[in-house]
Structures are given as structure tokens and as C-alpha cells.
């Protein structure tokens, strides 16, 4: 009870400080000379209040204070402590409070760490950031207050959705939000820089750190979500082109494009319009992500809480932000003309520009696929869904030139270049084509498309691999990231080509005899746990080579809320995953069994980590 009061008033105080900060900033902006110390103190105070408010909510969750509506809706006394804490951000209200926490934290760090930049720029960034922060404060206090009272106080909470009670998903939102919200700093400072006409190489060097930080977190956040979906949802896939997944991919694509633009801008004053537009796009897409996931507008297989009224607020807020930022862009931004002259076709920046267009294309495909169903529902109330074939058909063909450009682009020099090592580049291409042809030939699948795709990915793989040896530490970050990407695409392709699946219904004691695989359903054990009952099934699986595996997937029947989840049993090895999941069909003796052999699953996860490692190295690298 007391914690809710503290939390609630901290929020209101934080909002007041936001308003005070805007006032001081404007004053300071007029008679600038020095950054007013008051600004720094008030920013700290605001951060402090948000932290207090956040901790109050965490404590309410830990002590199961059911006088708090959010706690009542999302917690339960029998839940393990770890999930009580992670339950804080496993719901709409708490997750928005976390957003706010990261927003205020980042602007404070920004103010502290930004040196050698004009005072005016720092102040203006703060003002733009405060506009976002105030918007979120209002949103939180008015429409989704995490500290609403409940009276009479219930004895027991409703519990957290069991599929969210998982270690990967417990840390997935904070990591993802660090990525999402990190883009708010890029947004604010890009607007400030535009207003002050200082979008230049100097600014690019300064903002690159922030771009890298949010890019790393966003990449890892998506990875965690994907790993979770793989073992928890029981479909054995890692990406379903589900709207909820797409909304995290869109800011990632925008951010990746932005990162490459910044790399160009670091060296040469060009692509400034790209940088500004992409900074705006990344943040608005991140906000859209939160909005679409939390408002329930999306018709998704993993939709959580629904509330359209909240959606309206964010939608208005979002459109105001987009409108204002575009206004600033068109009023203040005058692209410099003098650099157009020395833009040569064969140069690193041209290749980056070409791949930027490809990424924008991928982004628009994902955007249309995600938004079109909502749009159609609003105008004609027709319910449709857009499935994986749409994305595959539109994205895969364009991956081929994209991969080739990723391989050759870094070989070019800045500004003007000619292609060296032509013979060597060409011979590697031939080798890649030959290898992939021999791999694909043995399998019936679509030979032509797969050969070309795999050879493009292999080509990038070989070139980046070779560069590790010849280029030594020069441009290591880029090389690692591109190497990781080639590994990712290769793993996904091989995973797609060579996966096999058996779905059958079995009773205890029965045996499935397939052409290659024999599955024996040996027994089931039941166990009682603190907040669920578990049914563990024991399978003995023999493959064509006579290798025997024992796998024990589990069904968990949670008591509060009463939900059954299936826990897949996965045997992970370097080369392949063996994945089995069971389901009980109501009132029947049959268990629904799904057994999959998925090659290179581990490599999909590893390659994404390698990609983010590239970002990390770039972040730590001292500029020479």
C-alpha cells in the first residue's frame, strides 16, 4: 500500500520536474554560455524519482501487495521470486515504467558524457527528450497507472501468464527496451543537430556511440525473443513473421541502415538527409513496436494484454512526434550541394547506399505485411493475415545482390576506387557456386534458387573469412559483423533445407515406426511443483544410423492462471538440434508428439551474437 503511494507520487513529481526542465532549458538556451548546473541536478532528480517509482513497483511485486491492481493482475504468491521481479515488466504498465526509466537514464548519461559539443546542442537535445519523457509520464499517469488501488484487497493475485515465466523472457524486455529507447537519444539529438545545422562529420562521430549501443541491445533483444519462441512456443521455429516479431525487426532494419549512413557521414559530409530521416524513423518505429504489441491492435499469435483506449493516446502522441520532427526536418534542413560533384559510382559509399536502398525495401515489405491487415480491418472490417510466403517471396530474391554487395562493398575505397584483386574475387565466386551446387544437388529441393542463394552467402563467408587473415585488425568490427551475417544466412538456409519433422499422436507405450526414425513412447511421470503440476514423458528415439537418444519433454499444468504449457526437450549439439514437444489432447489418451531434427540451430544463435560482437568492437575501438 505504502509503496504504491510512494510510487505514484514519485511519478507525479517526475512529471513536474520534466516541465521545470523544459522551462530552465529554454531560459538557458537564450542566454547560453555554460550549461546551467540546475539542469544537470534536475535531470538527476527526475531519474531518481523514476527509479524510486520503479523500485516501489518491484517491491510491491516482491511482497505480493495485492492492493495494487497491476500486482493483482500479474502476480501470485506461489510464483518464484525471480518471476515476481520479472513480472514487473511482464505487463503493460510495468513495461511502460521501464521505458520511462530507460528514457530518463539515457538522457542523464547523455548530459554527463557528452563533451566537446556545443551547449546549445546539449540543451536542445534535452528539450526534445523531455517532450518524449513528458508524453510518457502523461500516458502512464492518465491511461496506465501502475499504482492503481484495489479495494477490498484481494487475497490472491491472478498470476503471470506461465509462458512468460521463463529466464530468457524475463530479461528479453529490458534488453529490447534498451535498444528501443536508446534510439530516443538518437532521435532527440538528430532533431537538435538539424535545428542547429550541425549534422556533420563531427556530430556523426559523437552520435555513432549511441547508435551502436542501441543497435547492440536491439540485436540481442531480438535474439533473446527468438530463442524463447524456439523452445517455449513448441513450434520448433525461430522466426514466424508474426506481427509482434516484425515490429522489432523494423526498427532494427532502420537502425542498421542508419549505422551505415553514419559510417559514411563520419568521413564525408553526405547522406545527411538519410541520417536525419532514419533517426526519426528508428525511434518512431520503436514506439510503434511498443504500441502495437501492447495495445492489442495486432492480430498476433502471441498477443498479450489488450486495451484500445491506450492505443489511441500513443497513436496521437506518435503522430504529433512524427509531424513535429518532419516539420523540423523540412524547415531547418538544407542539404549541402557542393558534395554532389564528387560522388563516384565505384566507391564504398555507393555500395553502402545501394544496400541502404535494399534495406529500405526489406523494411517496407515488413511494414506493409504488418500494417496492411490492420488497415484492411479498419476500412472494410475484413480479417486477413499475411503469412511467411509473402515475406519469403519478396525478400529472398533480393538477398542475393544484397549479400554480394556486402562482400564486395568493403573491398572498395572511399570516394573513388577501382576494384583490385579482380581475379581473386572472381575465383572465390566460382568456388562458392560450385560448392553450393554440390551441396544442394543431393537434395531434391529447388536447385537453382538454393544454389544461387547459398553461393551468395558462401561468397560473403569466404571473403570475410579471408579478410581476417590478410587485413589483420583493420576494420575488424565490420568484418566480424559481416562474417556473422553470412553465417546467419547460411545457417538459416541449411536449417530450412535439411530440417525434418515427424508429427504423430501416440499413447503411452506405443511406437512410431517411420522410414528413418523410430520413436518409442516409454512412460510418463507426474511431479508436483510449487506452482504447477508437471507431466514428464519419456521417449526413446532411434535414427537411421542406429543412434539412440532419450528425450523427456514436459507438460506443465499451472494452477494460477490455469494454463497448460509444453516444455520442449532439446538435445543441442554443434551440428544439429533434436527437438521434441508433446501436447495432451483433451479427454483423450493420445499425446500429440512433434519431433524435429534441426541442423545448425546453435549457429543461428551464435551468428547473431557474432554480429553484435562486431558492434561491440566498433564501440570499444579507439578512433585513430
Amino acid at each position: 500500500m505504502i509503496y504504491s503511494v510512494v510510487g505514484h507520487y514519485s511519478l507525479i513529481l517526475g512529471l513536474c520536474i520534466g516541465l521545470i526542465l523544459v522551462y530552465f532549458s529554454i531560459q538557458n538556451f537564450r542566454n547560453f554560455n555554460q550549461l546551467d548546473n540546475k539542469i544537470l541536478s534536475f535531470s538527476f532528480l527526475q531519474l531518481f524519482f523514476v527509479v524510486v517509482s520503479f523500485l516501489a513497483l518491484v517491491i510491491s511485486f516482491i511482497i505480493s501487495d495485492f492492493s495494487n491492481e497491476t500486482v493483482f493482475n500479474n502476480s501470485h504468491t506461489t510464483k518464484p521470486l525471480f518471476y515476481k521481479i520479472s513480472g514487473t515488466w511482464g505487463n503493460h504498465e510495468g513495461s511502460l515504467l521501464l521505458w520511462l526509466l530507460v528514457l530518463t537514464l539515457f538522457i542523464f548519461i547523455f548530459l554527463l558524457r557528452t563533451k566537446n559539443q556545443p551547449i546549445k546542442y546539449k540543451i536542445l537535445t534535452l528539450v526534445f527528450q523531455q517532450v518524449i519523457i513528458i508524453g510518457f509520464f502523461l500516458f502512464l499517469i492518465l491511461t496506465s497507472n501502475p499504482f492503481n488501488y484495489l479495494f477490498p484487497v484481494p487475497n490472491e493475485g491472478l498470476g503471470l501468464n506461465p509462458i512468460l515465466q521463463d529466464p530468457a523472457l524475463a530479461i528479453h524486455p529490458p534488453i529490447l527496451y534498451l535498444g528501443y529507447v536508446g534510439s530516443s537519444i538518437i532521435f532527440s539529438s538528430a532533431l537538435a543537430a538539424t535545428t542547429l545545422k550541425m549534422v556533420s562529420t563531427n556530430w556523426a562521430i559523437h552520435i555513432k556511440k549511441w547508435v551502436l549501443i542501441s543497435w547492440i541491445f536491439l540485436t540481442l533483444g531480438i535474439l533473446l525473443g527468438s530463442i524463447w519462441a524456439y523452445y517455449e512456443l513448441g513450434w520448433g521455429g525461430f522466426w514466424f513473421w508474426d506481427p509482434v516479431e516484425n515490429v522489432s525487426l523494423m526498427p532494427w532494419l532502420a537502425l542498421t541502415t542508419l549505422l551505415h549512413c553514419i559510417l559514411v557521414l563520419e568521413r564525408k559530409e553526405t547522406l545527411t538527409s538519410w541520417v536525419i530521416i532514419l533517426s526519426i524513423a528508428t525511434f518512431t518505429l520503436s514506439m510503434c513496436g511498443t504500441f502495437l504489441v501492447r495495445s492489442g491492435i495486432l492480430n498476433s499469435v502471441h498477443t498479450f494484454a489488450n486495451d484500445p483506449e491506450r492505443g489511441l493516446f500513443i497513436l496521437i502522441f506518435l503522430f504529433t512526434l512524427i509531424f513535429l520532427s518532419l516539420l523540423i526536418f523540412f524547415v531547418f534542413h538544407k542539404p549541402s550541394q557542393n558534395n554532389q560533384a564528387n560522388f563516384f559510382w565505384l566507391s564504398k559509399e555507393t555500395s553502402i547506399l545501394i544496400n541502404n536502398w535494399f534495406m529500405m525495401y526489406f523494411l517496407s515489405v515488413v511494414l506493409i505485411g504488418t500494417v496492411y491487415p490492420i488497415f484492411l480491418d479498419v476500412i472494410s472490417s475484413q480479417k486477413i493475415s499475411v503469412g511467411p510466403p509473402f515475406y519469403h517471396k519478396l525478400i529472398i530474391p533480393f538477398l542475393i545482390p544484397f549479400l554480394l554487395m556486402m562482400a564486395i562493398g568493403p573491398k572498395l575505397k572511399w570516394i573513388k576506387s577501382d576494384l583490385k584483386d579482380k581475379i581473386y574475387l572472381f575465383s572465390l565466386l566460382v568456388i562458392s557456386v560450385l560448392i553450393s551446387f554440390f551441396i544442394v544437388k543431393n537434395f531434391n529441393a529447388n536447385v537453382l534458387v538454393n544454389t544461387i542463394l547459398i553461393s551468395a552467402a558462401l561468397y560473403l563467408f569466404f571473403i570475410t573469412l579471408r579478410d581476417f587473415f590478410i587485413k589483420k585488425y583493420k576494420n575488424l568490427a565490420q568484418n566480424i559483423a559481416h562474417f556473422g551475417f553470412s553465417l546467419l544466412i547460411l545457417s538459416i538456409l541449411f536449417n530450412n533445407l535439411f530440417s525434418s519433422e515427424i508429427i504423430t499422436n501416440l499413447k503411452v507405450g506405443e511406437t512410431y515406426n517411420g522410414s528413418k526414425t523410430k520413436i518409442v513412447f516409454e512412460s510418463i511421470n507426474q511431479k508436483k511443483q510449487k506452482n504447477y503440476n508437471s507431466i514428464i514423458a519419456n521417449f526413446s528415439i532411434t535414427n537411421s544410423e542406429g543412434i539412440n537418444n532419450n528425450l523427456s519433454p514436459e507438460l506443465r499444468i499451472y494452477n494460477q492462471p490455469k494454463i497448460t504449457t509444453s516444455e520442449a526437450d532439446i538435445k543441442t549439439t554443434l551440428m544439429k538440434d533434436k527437438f521434441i514437444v508433446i501436447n495432451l489432447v483433451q479427454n483423450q489418451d493420445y499425446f500429440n508428439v512433434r519431433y524435429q531434427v534441426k541442423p545448425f540451430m546453435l549457429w543461428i544463435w551464435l551468428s547473431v551474437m557474432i554480429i553484435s560482437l562486431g558492434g561491440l568492437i566498433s564501440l570499444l575501438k579507439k578512433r585513430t
Partner: protein
Amino acid sequence: MYGRKVKLRFLFVTLILVTLILTVFLILKSLEENVVYFQSPTEIKTLSELDTNKIRVGGMVKKNSINVNSDEVNFIITDFKNEINVSYSGAVPNLFAEEKGVVAEGFLKDRNFFSATKILAKHDENYMPPEVKKALEEK
């Protein structure tokens, strides 16, 4: 020199425009081909001609209608007005149960028989696919 520059710029803009138009055309075209429509059993009954594309059918799983054998799961989807038989051989989501909402994706064999390729999971007991909610509200 100036003329050449303008020409180049003109060429560039045209190129971008053509690419843009092509892209939009391509996206919309494949959107049209790959969209999956949602239909309730009643809507299927009143179809003038049978849809050969992949569709989604949603409603409630009828009580005592689930029947499992080693190859497939059979059940009936109802919207309390009309119903349709569904046969499915694949993995069943956790919350698939009688008298609960369900969305099945697959192909129509005829007006009374649906062959599902996928049954969609829902994660929350209180959650009902918006499509199902709508179909049930209209009953």
C-alpha cells in the same frame, strides 16, 4: 557540363521512380496472392463458390467433437449457427480444447469439410482471437 549534369540527375530520378513503382507493384501483387482470409463457418456456408486458396476458419471447438487417432485430430468448429468438420494432422497448441476458441488454417474440401494445415496457438486463457470474438458476437 551543366547539361550533362542535369541529364544525369534526370536519369537518376527516373530510375528511382521506376524502381519505386515496380517495388510497390511487386509488393501489392504478392500481397494479393499470399493473403489469408478469415471466415466463420456461417460465411463458408453462404459462399457462392468454393475458395481454393488457403483460408482461416475460426469459432468454438464443439463439445465432445474432438476425436484423435494416431494420424490425425478431427473436430468440429462451430459459431453456434453453422459448423464445419475439420481434420488436422499436425501439432496441436496447448490451449486447444473443447468449448474454447480456435483458429484453423488450411483448405476447404467442400462446404462441410476443412483440411487444416495449422492450428493457431493462443497463449492466454482469457484471450480470444479478435476474429473469433467478432464471429461470435455476430451470432
